[in-house]
């Protein structure tokens, strides 16, 4: 501690005593010079080094640049004394950054501390990596950090730090972490008993899962389970309650993690999640008087609302949320108003039905006048998100009114938003022109060039609008001060369409000229050049003011600006040509409409043409992003700049804020053309590698034609199955027994179904995270057969017992499980048999069989197997008593019922047997034959 060093305390006191900055600097320079000399002389003991380095740190904290002490800090790190080591590490983390050359020198000391038996040295080392670790450190130390994280002997405080350190390493150098392979191991730590560890591990999982969604998919269940424990079951250590709210940080993190994934379609998980969200929302029904308690509760609530919006914008939860939000935006507490508006904007961006939000339009508009700029910003964002064709005139009108009083820093954004909304939701051209001209006159400085270009394009392409626009712009120009952009629009429109209004009183050519020319002197050269062009057009249509115009050209022939001078000279020459010359008329031909291009965004405006520069839209899309946290890399805004209309939809959708979650599809296994079945490739997709063992296949095969038995067994765990089927539905009870005398912790069970559309298999409830020693846990699985399928689902179970283990086995759920007996008479059977006919609705194969000891065909076994596969043996139907014929009906929920007939013809002499399966569905015939054939077939080895 600093007070243990008297020199340091004196130094600090001196600096505090310095009355003016100069004295302080003098004192510091003196001290630095002294330290530099001491360091140069060398021969310092640890205490002295520590003292001087501490002074250097203090100087640094005061904001002075320090260039001494780095080397000494490096030396201190390897000191055996903790007090010196600690100061050394503090100096390293404060004075150095990740690219410091000095860091190379500390890598070895850090490794030594990571491997030290003293845990608090481990902590110092971890903390240093987490603060300044760069690529080099990541490469050198990732393994050591990972080991500290997963080692069962690490105390909780080391594991916490190791988790966050690993996160830093991953951020700096993702390649050193084999994320997919470590996924299950890391996720299993989310079950840790210590909530501190869970918080840190969740942060780690959140970061890696963003890049490896499928590999980390199991964290979804873990997060839901943990939330359920915290929120619904109140299962947590009392010290982690923060003002009576169970660890709000963890809740917030978990709720956010769930937003990274597309909504789960597992009904069990959905149910639990719904309960959790509902409980959180109900908890906030009555606000308490304690500020901290309210804060914490609202932190969780806002995240829960975000998740509810993410899951389904039409759910009753979101309705409840909308009611809560409405209450929040008129809350007395500024923080709550702020977050209420923020979250409502999120909802507005996601939902299609804005009615709930529109009810509060008045309150939101009032929030634009809130006393706090932070709140005003949020209100602006929300108004922007909730705007559509119905309320655009109102909202844009409000924004225009607000623009006049808005904070300077906010104006540009307001202008941009008005411009976009006006264009996007314009119902009439007249309104569009009115609004934009008003915008130009109110905040010309903040309006980009594109905006007035666009007005000109629209006016040019819309004949009905031209006279109106000319009048309006003339009125604006008549006001004493008008912005330069307005002068430009005026110059352009009056030049082209001024003649349309010239006959009306007050709009005579002379009036137009005087009004426009009076603005000229306040404008920059480019605008004046534009005005000269206007004048030449007028020479053509308004011969009565030609002398005045010639006069202007004459004067401009002598200005210094090259462009102006050239224009003036050319126009002067053009205007001075004889009256009957056609050149002037040809030059001043009315401009044609701008080329028509279809744009989704501009569709509403129904303009005939006009290509708008993407810039404002693109900027808009970047301003929209922050409304929701950027979870995934988003399409880069710059990419849109070069494209024109082809990606108008992209722009529109990014405007709508849809970028939030849709990207997750990109990583689904089916879209990844990765045929390689390596562990890493499978792990990346979140699929387990099947466990192999001498008995695994035998257990599985046996269960195919029996309802119960052992599925897997080793020294630690036994998995048994009991099953029951009815029609297209089935229920499996899976018994997972812990055979050892220690608990199996971080227990996770997951089901992987190859084709969700053909077969669904879900747990009835989330598996417990622990199985006590020598006990059994039963899990129910609901199965539904939708269409014919060939791949059985995989059950993967992972747990910690000393080390982390994963077992993945196929579940005995095959097509024949959904077959039910059917009774057929002889005539019926052969009638149908004939009706179905041969291939492709018939599958047939001849295969070798083994005879029993007496040399006969083992009929009993055959009958047993066949009826095990749920086919009804029809005795006495076949003329040959050795043959077996049977029938069944397969039930599927989507494809309905499919009949299935089979005939087995053994031949004792040839030791062969012929199997024929006929079914109205060719897929079914082939699959049923394949399944029944396997246990009947002679083992080629025997």
């Amino acid at each position, binding site marked *: 501690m600093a007070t243990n060093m008297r020199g340091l305390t004196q130094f600090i006191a001196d600096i505090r005593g310095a009355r003016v900055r100069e004295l302080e600097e003098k004192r510091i320079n003196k001290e630095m010079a002294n330290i530099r000399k001491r360091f140069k002389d060398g021969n310092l003991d640890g205490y002295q080094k520590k003292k001087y380095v501490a002074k250097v740190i203090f100087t640094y904290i005061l904001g002075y640049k320090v260039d001494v002490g780095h080397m000494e800090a490096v030396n201190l790190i390897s000191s055996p004394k903790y007090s010196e080591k*600690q100061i050394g590490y503090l100096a390293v983390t404060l004075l150095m950054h990740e690219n410091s050359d000095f860091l190379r020198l500390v890598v070895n000391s850090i490794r030594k501390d990571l491997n030290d038996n003293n845990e608090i040295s481990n902590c110092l080392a971890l*903390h240093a990596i987490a603060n300044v670790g760069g690529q080099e450190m990541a490469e050198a130390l990732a393994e050591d950090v990972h080991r500290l994280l997963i080692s069962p002997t690490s105390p909780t405080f080391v594991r916490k*730090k190791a988790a966050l350190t690993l*996160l830093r390493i991953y951020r700096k150098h993702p390649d050193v972490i084999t994320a997919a392979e470590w996924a299950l191991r890391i996720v299993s730590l989310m079950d840790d008993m210590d909530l501190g560890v869970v918080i*840190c591990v969740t942060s780690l999982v959140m970061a890696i899962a963003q890049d490896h969604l499928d590999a980390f998919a199991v964290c979804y269940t873990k997060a839901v389970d943990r939330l359920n424990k915290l929120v619904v079951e109140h299962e947590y250590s009392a*010290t982690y309650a923060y003002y009576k709210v169970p660890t709000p940080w963890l809740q917030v993190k978990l709720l956010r993690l769930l937003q990274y994934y597309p909504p789960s379609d597992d009904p069990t998980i959905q149910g639990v999640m719904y309960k959790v969200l509902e409980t959180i929302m109900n908890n906030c029904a009555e606000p308490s008087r304690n500020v901290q308690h309210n*804060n914490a509760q609202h932190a969780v609530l806002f995240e829960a609302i975000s998740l509810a919006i993410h899951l389904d914008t039409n759910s009753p939860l979101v309705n409840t949320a909308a009611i809560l939000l409405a209450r929040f935006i008129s809350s007395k507490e500024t*923080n709550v108003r702020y977050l209420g508006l923020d979250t409502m904007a999120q909802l507005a961006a996601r939902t299609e039905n804005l009615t709930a939000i529109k009810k509060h339009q008045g309150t939101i508009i009032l929030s634009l006048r809130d006393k706090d700029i932070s709140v005003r910003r949020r209100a602006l964002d929300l108004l922007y998100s909730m705007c559509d064709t119905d309320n655009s005139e109102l909202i844009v009108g409000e924004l225009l009114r607000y623009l006049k009083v808005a904070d300077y820093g906010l104006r540009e954004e307001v202008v941009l938003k008005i411009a976009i909304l006006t264009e996007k939701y314009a119902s009439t051209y007249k309104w569009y022109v009115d609004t934009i001209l008003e915008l130009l006159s109110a905040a010309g400085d903040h309006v980009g060039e594109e905006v007035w270009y666009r007005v000109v394009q629209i006016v040019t392409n819309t004949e009905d609008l031209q006279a109106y626009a000319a009048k309006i712009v003339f009125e604006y120009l008549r006001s004493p001060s008008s912005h330069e952009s307005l002068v430009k629009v005026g110059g352009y429109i009056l030049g082209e369409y001024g003649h349309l209004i010239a006959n009306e009183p007050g709009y005579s050519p002379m009036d137009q000229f005087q009004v426009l020319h009076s603005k000229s002197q306040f404008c920059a050269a480019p605008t004046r050049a534009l005005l000269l062009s206007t004048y030449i057009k007028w020479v053509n249509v308004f011969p009565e003011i030609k002398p005045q115009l010639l006069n202007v050209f004459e004067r401009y022939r002598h200005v210094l600006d090259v462009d102006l001078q050239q224009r003036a000279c050319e126009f002067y020459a053009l205007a001075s040509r004889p009256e009957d010359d056609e050149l002037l008329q040809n030059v001043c031909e009315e401009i044609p409409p701008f080329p028509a291009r279809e744009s989704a965004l501009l569709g509403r405006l129904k303009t005939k043409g006009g290509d708008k520069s993407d810039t404002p839209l693109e900027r808009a899309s970047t301003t929209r992003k922050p409304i929701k946290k950027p979870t995934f890399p988003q399409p880069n805004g710059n990419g849109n700049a070069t494209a024109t209309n082809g990606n108008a939809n992209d722009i529109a959708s990014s405007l709508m804020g849809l970028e939030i979650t849709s990207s997750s599809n990109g990583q689904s296994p089916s879209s990844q053309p990765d045929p390689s079945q390596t562990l890493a490739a499978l792990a990346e997709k979140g699929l387990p590698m099947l466990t192999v063992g001498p008995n695994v296949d035998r257990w599985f095969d046996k269960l195919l034609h029996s309802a119960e038995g052992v599925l897997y067994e080793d020294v630690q765990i036994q998995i048994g199955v009991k099953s029951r089927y009815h029609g297209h539905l089935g229920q499996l009870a899976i018994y997972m027994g812990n055979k050892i005398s220690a608990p199996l912790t971080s227990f996770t069970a997951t089901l992987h179904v190859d084709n969700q559309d053909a077969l669904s298999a879900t747990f009835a409830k989330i598996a417990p995270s622990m199985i006590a020693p020598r006990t059994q846990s039963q899990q129910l699985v609901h199965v539904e057969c939708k269409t014919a399928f060939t791949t059985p689902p995989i059950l993967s179970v992972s747990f910690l017992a000393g080390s982390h283990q994963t077992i993945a086995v196929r579940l005995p759920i095959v097509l024949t499980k959904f077959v039910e007996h059917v009774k057929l008479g002889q005539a019926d059977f052969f009638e149908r048999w004939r009706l179905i006919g041969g291939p492709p609705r018939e599958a047939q194969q001849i295969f070798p069989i083994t005879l029993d000891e007496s040399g006969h065909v083992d009929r009993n076994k055959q009958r047993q197997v066949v009826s095990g596969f749920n086919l009804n043996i029809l005795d006495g139907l076949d003329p040959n008593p050795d043959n077996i014929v049977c029938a069944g009906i397969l039930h599927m929920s989507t494809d309905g019922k499919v009949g299935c007939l089979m005939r087995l013809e053994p031949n004792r002499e040839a030791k062969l047997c012929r199997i024929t399966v006929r079914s109205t569905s060719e897929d079914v015939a082939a699959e049923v034959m394949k399944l029944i054939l396997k246990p009947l077939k002679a083992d080629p080895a025997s």
Partner: protein
Amino acid sequence: MIHAVLIFNTSGVARLTKFYSTLHRSSQTLVHQIFSLVSTRAPGLCNFLDAPELESFLTAQEADGEKLRVVYRNYATLYFVFVVDSAESELGILDLIQVFVESLDRTFENVCELDLVFHFDEVHHILSEVIQGGLVLETNVEEIDHQVQRAAKARKESFASANPLSLGSGVAGGGSRASGLSSLGWLTEKLAGVGTK
């Protein structure tokens, strides 16, 4: 992620600056800018501030759309300021500031600005038990205090072994504190007249 943790007093003098992402410009200017943003805000306003001005200081080149928010809390003469990105919950950070202050209070008993000046190293150690590398490490005040004590004990032992004559002055709530200085008093919100230096 948390990009920066700053503590400065009502005169704008920084008492703690800790950056978790590489700074692209001078830290002094950043502190001044944040101070001018925060200190002008009236007490009733919300504790969050959009800070587009600060982005050039802290955001990495590739993070273009990342918006930073300033979350601050005022305790008597000190401002506690966290600069965070959109991955953090604003209210959560507000709670975290409270946890940090409570942890400081555990160690210093009625912590006041002077403690932060004279025990700057200890303040950093406490902070490192709350936040590591820009992420929340621990939020349980008991546990934070426990860790701080553990480190203090180790330091004391190594210090005693180095100086057999030292009596090993206490770690927490040292008697050397100048008396008469009022504490931060977050419950009373009492303003204290602590000097600017």
